[in-house]
């Protein structure tokens, strides 16, 4: 190949880009031949990049490969048509062996054709390896969704497995048979092609293993994503997690981080080593003196002054609110000898500004005060004020007191 050949290819590709796209996009019937066949199309047909068949134009596998290669943004490159290439190599070998003794030019042409096919296979394999490596090192491929990433990985593994299976056809014995002991063919098919295939097979195996590992990682992350979504929905439904049940598990200690522990210690002085004690005393003396807050005034310096006690003004305490009412209730109790209801008393004698709840609170507080005084003076009260409560509601520890009953204390109470 020469630089001019590449320039010619480029020129014809540019000039016939639209026609080539039509040919590649055409169905099995192919694209209709244009009325005016350009020089470029003729050249492409001659180079077998475009095939002419029954008045229609068809793309060659090479052109399709090229098209897919340059338009592909991702990993989905076309798989190399290795079977076709293998057939090509076999036929070229047969032609080469037939032409070898007759025409050097024809033999040279066939040798070149074999070399190109071998090169195509090796390049395909190298590209495949590179694309897969890039895919793996991109860690998650290109898809934003875990499901898509898993699909990509699955496809990549299947693709490599298919490729690996196709390489089975490149057997040493088969290739060796085609060489027919020709040195040139042995160099091309065995030294170059077969060695490259063996190398690639090993690398493909490694890649499949790495893809499997990547698949496991993505599957685990997909599972974590499901966990996040499930927990979020559950929390949004108003549930509160209670992890303390984990403590009931036998392996509970494995689940939880230990509480932080600060590293510290106590100084144990060497009490039997007098030198060490002296050193420590020196050290302590060398430390700055502790800060002591200074007294505002030196007490000794203050001159003595006579203190005249002032007579305290005694203010008579107001009569407790509940006292007259309790006395009235006690009179009634003494008179009738039946327990007195504080609520009923308040219905008859209520001070309009206070409700029964205020009355009960005040009476209870006053009674408790009297009990304390009685305990202190050791003069026990002869009556008891008992609360009357509603039944305790379920789930709440508070109990509603509706009344206080005044009664005479029983013996032994």
């Amino acid at each position, binding site marked *: 190949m020469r630089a001019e050949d590449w320039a010619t290819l480029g020129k014809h590709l540019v000039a016939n880009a639209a026609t080539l796209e039509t040919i590649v996009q055409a169905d099995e019937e192919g694209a209709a031949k244009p009325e005016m066949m350009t020089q470029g199309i003729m050249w492409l047909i001659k180079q077998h990049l475009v095939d002419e068949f029954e008045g229609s134009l068809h793309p060659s596998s090479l052109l399709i490969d090229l098209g897919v290669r340059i338009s592909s943004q991702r990993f989905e490159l076309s798989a190399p048509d290795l079977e076709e290439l293998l057939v090509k190599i076999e036929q070229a070998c047969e032609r080469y062996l037939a032409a070898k003794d007759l025409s050097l030019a024809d033999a040279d042409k066939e040798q070149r054709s074999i070399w190109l096919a071998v090169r195509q296979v090796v390049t395909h394999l190298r590209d495949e390896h590179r694309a897969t490596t890039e895919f793996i090192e991109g860690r998650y491929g290109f898809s934003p969704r875990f499901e898509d990433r898993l699909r990509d990985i699955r496809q990549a593994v299947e693709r490599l497995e298919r490729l690996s299976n196709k390489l089975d056809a490149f057997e040493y014995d088969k290739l060796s048979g085609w060489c027919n002991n020709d040195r040139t063919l042995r160099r091309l098919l065995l030294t170059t092609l077969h060695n490259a295939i063996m190398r690639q097979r090993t690398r493909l195996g490694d890649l499949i293993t790495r893809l499997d590992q990547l698949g496991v990682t993505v599957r685990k992350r997909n599972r974590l994503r499901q966990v996040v979504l499930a927990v979020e929905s559950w929390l949004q439904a108003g549930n509160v*997690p209670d992890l303390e049940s984990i403590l009931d598990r036998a392996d509970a200690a494995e689940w*939880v981080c230990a509480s932080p522990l600060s590293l510290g210690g106590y100084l144990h002085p060497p009490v039997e080593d007098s030198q060490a004690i002296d050193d420590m005393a020196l050290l302590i003396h060398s430390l700055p003196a502790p800060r002591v807050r200074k007294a505002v005034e030196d007490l000794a310096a203050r001159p003595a002054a006579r203190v005249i006690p002032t007579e305290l003004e005694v203010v008579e305490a107001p009569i407790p609110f509940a006292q007259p009412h309790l006395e009235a209730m006690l009179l009634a109790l003494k008179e009738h000898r039946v327990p007195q209801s504080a609520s009923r008393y308040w219905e008859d004698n209520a001070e309009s500004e206070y409700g029964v709840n205020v009355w009960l609170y005040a009476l209870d507080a006053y009674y408790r005060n009297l009990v304390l005084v009685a305990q202190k003076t050791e003069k026990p009260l002869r009556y008891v004020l008992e609360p009357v409560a509603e039944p305790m509601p379920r789930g709440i520890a508070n109990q509603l007191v509706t009344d206080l009953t005044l009664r005479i204390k029983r013996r032994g109470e």
Partner: protein
Amino acid sequence: MRDTLESLLGGRFICRYSSPELYSQLCDASYARAVDQALQPLGRTLGWLGSIEQPSAFFSRFVSLSYANDRIAAAEEFKHIRDAIWPVVEFIQLCARAGRGDVCLAPGEEVHTAQLLAQVENSSICGDQLRDLAGHAFFRRSKRGDSHSEKLSVVLKTMEEAGFLVRKGVGSSIFVATGKMAYIYRAMSWIVEHQRLVPDDESDAASDTQSEFIL
């Protein structure tokens, strides 16, 4: 070994992202054994998340919960985990929405502050999500900003202080999820299993055991 012991006893998680050197040392079996022996007299042992061949993080755990004080401390720690679950879940969801893809903040995944902030400022849904997130008691602190940038800064700083994120480099605005995320995920996986939140057939890895959920 002093650094390792101080980190572990301080309640920190050692992973390849937060303390790469300590982590690689702990991956050495003989070194891990020596650390474990140093922890044993204190009633602690070396714990890890994930598989022992490739642990996500190392941490110090109680040898057993037979001591009443250890059990009380463990119950307290479970309360801390419980209180962190919802804020962390919402933070993951914010990152997922901002990143336009599946995000689970598994150890090693990155959080780009600039990308997150841009998305929060351009999308009212993300803005609302950040406002709700910053309202969690977990992120509430004396200094609370009103702008998206300040709120996000508080959220990221709290996540960093709690040990779930670490800066990729000194002063970097890119954060990396640490191995401690696996600690939260283990608790969440337990909730999922305990409450039967995800049917088995939805899981690709139906045969996975709970420990295998953790990366």
